[in-house]
């Protein structure tokens, strides 16, 4: 599980370079990717729902990103992108396409819907945290 999270860290690092993030922000952002993947694996071990695990991972990744953005006074997008990228349901998308090509439309649809739900869960995680963080900003003022 630790090794797997390390892979997620390295993948996020590669992504960070593609997005031209530099210096210490690159490392901090990639750590977010490792952290969210670790949360996902941990949650997937403790309970069966994949979509819920993605939601939790997205929550943790977003909290980490918002906190780091406050500390380093940097746009939060930089961190969120790297934290979320390992969670993006590329696999679901691929299997949905593959089944459609093979002519199994039932399997393709169910994979497709699962992918859509996964994407939704990740989105809700980000929305939730960034909404809360705006409340914090108001309170601080």
């Amino acid at each position, binding site marked *: 599980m630790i090794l*797997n999270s390390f*892979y*997620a860290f*390295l*993948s996020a*690092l*590669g*992504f960070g*370079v*593609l*997005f*031209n*993030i*530099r210096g210490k*922000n690159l490392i901090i952002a990639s750590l977010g990717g490792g952290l969210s*993947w670790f949360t996902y694996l941990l949650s997937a071990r403790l309970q069966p729902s994949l979509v819920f695990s993605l939601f939790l991972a997205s929550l943790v990744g977003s909290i980490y990103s918002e906190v780091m953005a406050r500390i380093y*006074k*940097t*746009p939060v*997008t*930089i961190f*969120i*992108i790297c934290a*979320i*990228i*390992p969670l*993006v349901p*590329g*696999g679901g*998308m*691929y*299997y*949905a*396409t*593959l089944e*459609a*090509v*093979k002519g199994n439309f039932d399997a393709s649809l169910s994979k497709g819907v699962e992918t859509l739900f996964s*994407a939704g869960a990740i*989105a809700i995680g*980000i*929305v939730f945290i*960034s*909404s809360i963080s705006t409340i914090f900003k108001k309170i601080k003022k």
Partner: protein
Amino acid sequence: MHIDDIIHVATDAGKIILENGGETYRVEQTITMICKSYGIPHTESFVTPTGIMVSITNSQNKTISLVRRINNRTVNLRKVEMINDLSRKIMSRPISTDDMRKEIEFINNIPPYSQITTTFFAAGSSGFFTLLFGGNYKDFFVAFIIGALINYLGGYLDKLDVNGFLKNMLGGALAATMAIIAASLGLVGNMDTIIIGSIMILVPGISITNAIRDTIAGDLVSGVSRSVEALFVAIAIAAGTSIAFKIWVLLFGGGLI
């Protein structure tokens, strides 16, 4: 200080953020902040992913406006970060519009990572995604090569001004074709994980994130257009991989798995 200089400086700063992957509200905020630090009491801006409209009114009730069309959008988060820092800085310590223009120009001309660096990291990224999704070390090397090829192809197509749809379609097709070839040569354990790992670097991460963030910030037009952008990229990747599969089956017959 001339009101024309102010609106140009502010809009140029906003344009750089928008072109390099910043959120819509950040563009509007930056424009407002810069105008405010030059003593403009009223600033209104309307920003969508394809254009910026700004209108400012100074204390003598003179109003001017400026429209900027955005044609090219890439991702360079370093520029977003630097403009963000710059606009924070001038809030506390204002500088002249000429100096500001020089700063903006300097930020805009910062070169991105070189092609070799991005190719290497794109390759590493696909390789590690493949490991992440359960591939073994052989799969890693194949995905590494495919990732490098996809990135190289992307860079080449960018030079030819090929649009995003075709670029992602060709990227997806390349990933699928290479993975099938590797699988039929018996080089790899699991073809699926390689393809998933390689197409991950085509995934429109920035559009997805910004679509979500724009929508909740209330920038509905931008939110919807970025979602559509992300959706089309996904469709392009899926179309590319499936066309490659179909052609392979037609040419060589047999099952895929």
